[in-house]
């Protein structure tokens, strides 16, 4: 049996190796989002659409969470193809392979969290005990990352189209989720709010972002996230019981 610490060690080594020949190493993870936050924040406040103190923290938290969420989903469709050699050596069970991938996404978030901390300090956003609620939210995001990878991993082995679909959908979902815009802006909030209810990503991000910015998390946010989590684990349970044994054959 592959223990969790072994899975963690594998993920660490693979993470370190993946930045081997770059001079900045994992610091490259900070460059993209930092530029994005600085330029977009400056641009939006220049045209006077937003107040930087409200928008930049909103943007940076949303962006970092989005990198994790979309990273997990986009990569989930190809996970078992990428790990074919490890599967075919017969020791790593599929859930362990999923965990290794989730760990590597967590390392990325851990680096990019520096940007969020920087932004919160710069704008002197007051944190309270209530802000700790966002940790529960993030734990739920991780838990959902695990079941999505388990489910989409199976689907991706059987239907190789999954990967293409995710690439296309996640780009649109980024625009449909309030990351580079704020709900309730420009007096058109009412329209977007009804659309947002049906955007699951919005509820997940709100669960982490709202407590950090001192906004209330709505009951609807909690309900949607917990319902999706429960549904996802039930789905993953049945899919794994039925199809996990076929994954090595379909590879």
């Amino acid at each position, binding site marked *: 049996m592959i223990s969790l610490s072994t899975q963690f060690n594998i993920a660490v080594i693979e993470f370190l190796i*993946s930045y*081997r020949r770059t001079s900045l190493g994992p610091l490259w993870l900070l460059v993209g989002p930092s530029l994005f936050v600085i330029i977009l924040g400056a641009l939006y406040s220049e045209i006077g659409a937003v107040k930087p103190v409200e928008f930049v923290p909103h943007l940076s938290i949303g962006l970092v969470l989005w990198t994790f969420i979309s990273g997990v989903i986009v990569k989930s469709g190809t996970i078992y193809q990428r790990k*074919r050699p490890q599967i075919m*050596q017969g020791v*790593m069970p599929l859930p362990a392979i999923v965990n290794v991938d989730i760990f590597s996404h967590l390392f990325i978030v851990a680096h990019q969290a520096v940007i969020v901390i920087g932004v919160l300090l710069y704008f002197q956003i007051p944190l309270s005990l209530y802000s700790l609620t966002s940790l529960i939210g993030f734990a739920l995001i991780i838990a959902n990352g695990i079941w999505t990878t388990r489910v989409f991993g199976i689907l991706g082995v059987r239907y190789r189209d999954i990967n293409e679909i995710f690439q296309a959908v996640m780009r649109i979902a980024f625009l449909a989720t309030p990351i580079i815009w704020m709900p309730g802006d420009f007096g058109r909030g009412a329209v977007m709010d009804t659309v947002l209810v049906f955007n699951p990503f919005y509820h997940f991000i709100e669960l982490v972002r709202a407590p950090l910015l001192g906004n209330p998390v709505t009951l609807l946010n909690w309900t949607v996230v917990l319902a999706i989590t429960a549904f996802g684990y039930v789905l993953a349970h049945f899919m794994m019981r039925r199809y996990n044994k076929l994954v090595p054959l379909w590879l």
Partner: protein
Amino acid sequence: MTKPPEPKPLLEADEVSLHVPTVLPGEKRILISSADLVRNFYLPKQERKVVTLLSGISLKLQPGDRLGLVGANGAGKSTLLRLLAGIYTPSSGKLVVRGATQGLFEVSLGMHPEATGRENIYLRGLHMGLQLSQIRQLVPEVLEFSELSDHIDKPFITYSSGMRLRLAIAVSTMIEPDILLLDEWIGAGDAQFNKKVKARMMSLVEKSRALVIATHNEELMESLCSHAMVLIDGKSAYYGKVDDALKFYSARKRKSV
């Protein structure tokens, strides 16, 4: 006086079958017209089918047994080995394995090109289920066997093909399983190293409590195995003594030619 109870077999397979639902690409008529070629590329016809890879295979491995698998290419030898290794799960029948199995198939796969040889030893070791401390103890032995000396801290991608194979073999054979599964005898290019590999493999075979080997090399099978199974189209056509199995197989081959 009662006889001591017979030891439980290390591995027991009872009427094991393996079926896979697959989507097969439909008939392609590339050469007929260019219009068909374009249509096939964008909207390929597909056919759903359940393919039977193995059917009704029964076998038993007692401690000390050495089983050889004989059969034509595609008869299901490798599939059976992967099933015994626990990679594939039988669709029907019962498979009981008592002990650690280790398959040596596709030994060269799973190396990380950007990582150094040493890092690859750690990565592969972790993937085999070893702890970091166990791997640390095994590293000197792997180094000695693979003869990589200074190269071990260079990226794997810079290795010559001989060096890659040497490291792969050294890493794959660093633990000694109860039940050893071999898909063809492993060999390396140069004669000197091949001798070493042979000695290492023999010691692995001797230390293991049971062996299953698929090979086309009849001499090797006669010298190594205690009994043999002939596989034809995923079915066990003969299961018994090595000599008889090989005779049966060559008679079958003559008939079909």
